[in-house]
């Protein structure tokens, strides 16, 4: 591993730590301040019941939206940095971008893809709630669509991203 690659890895580790730390803050503050339930069997039972209880899923979508938003922003900052290496030296740029082909980075890219798909689709859902005046039921159904798009899109993307290293 070259110095440039090591520095990039450190930057990426920082992004990962930021995402995890923010996730912990969100969940802990939700537990302390929020009206939401604790992650418990009672919550799972509520999510399994049709009707108003299932709207609780939207609270967790809100948390995930925040965490994925921070993750995307942090990664974007790192990515702007590593792409701008091209201005400094093409060799260093190539060295750093070889890291993207490693197995750990590919796995991280799958996570990034999920974050990107979820954040985008959920953002569009929130816009639709306003524009189409979606109520509790409609908004919950739209969230099922968001989750479906995110999961299916991630699986398809994962086949392309991980394909070369699995084969």
């Amino acid at each position, binding site marked *: 591993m070259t110095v440039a690659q090591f520095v990039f890895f450190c930057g990426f580790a920082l992004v990962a730590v930021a995402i995890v730390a923010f996730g912990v803050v969100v969940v802990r503050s939700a537990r302390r301040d929020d*009206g939401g*339930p604790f992650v418990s069997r*009672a919550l799972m039972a509520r999510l399994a019941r049709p009707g108003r*209880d299932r709207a609780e899923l*939207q609270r967790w979508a809100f948390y995930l939206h925040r965490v994925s938003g921070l993750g995307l922003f942090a990664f974007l900052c790192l990515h702007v940095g590593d792409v701008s290496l091209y201005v400094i030296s093409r060799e260093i740029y190539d060295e750093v971008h070889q890291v993207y082909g490693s197995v750990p980075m590919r796995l991280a890219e799958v996570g990034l893809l999920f974050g990107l798909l979820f954040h985008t689709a959920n953002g569009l859902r929130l816009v639709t709630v306003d524009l189409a005046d979606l109520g509790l039921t409609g908004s919950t159904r739209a969230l099922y669509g968001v989750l479906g798009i995110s999961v299916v899109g991630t699986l398809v993307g994962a086949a392309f991203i991980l394909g070369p290293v699995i084969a």
Partner: protein
Amino acid sequence: MGEAATADTNAGELLRVTVTRSADDARSEFLVTRIRPMTVLDALLAVQREHDPAVAFRFSCRVGMCGTCTVRVDGRSVLACQTDIPADTVRIRVDPLAGLPVVRDLIVDTGPFWQAWGSVRPYLVPGEDADVGMDGEPAVIAPDSAERRAIDPALDCIGCAACFSSCGIASAHRDFVGPAALNRAMVLIADSRDDATAERLRVVGAESGVDRCHYIYGCSAACPKGLDPAGAIRRLRGRRFRGDR
């Protein structure tokens, strides 16, 4: 934990009640005898009567009118007097409302909720030229009018603060007027007899107004009177591009 609380829960005959206490050394787990049907308020009263008279909670009317007994049961903000404990439930956890300062055990200071409520001037302000007074004719909104259809489903708020506690923004001490106040603002803005629309629109359009809502829908899901504060917020936001009152 007391001796009774360590006994096995007996096939629905006993109910384990966990109450969040404000004093760290206060007992928080209790086993009470099941009655059927049994509300959360019944369980709390049984705890107070049979185990610890110092457990603090509020209640008054017992019929879901006063909005006094709101607590969180397994995370959900509910009226204790109106919430049945399902027959197959053997344990419940009762917490004070979220986002409001705890006075003691399950009693919270609802001051921040009422402060937000007051910020939207929650009463009808008649116009200067309105015919008011004992001899005035009552101003009528026809029962079948669009105005009435907008207003009616949003009335009947009892100020229980379940929506405030269920809101991921208001309860997290962020600067947000909250669902109940915005629901009340929508009712008065939609009312053609009211003359303080401009003032209310300034409040709901400000930084702490409708744009703070992230459509978590905790408010509409939790409202014990079946109101839809999130719908009121959508209506207020929709005024920008639909132009309705």
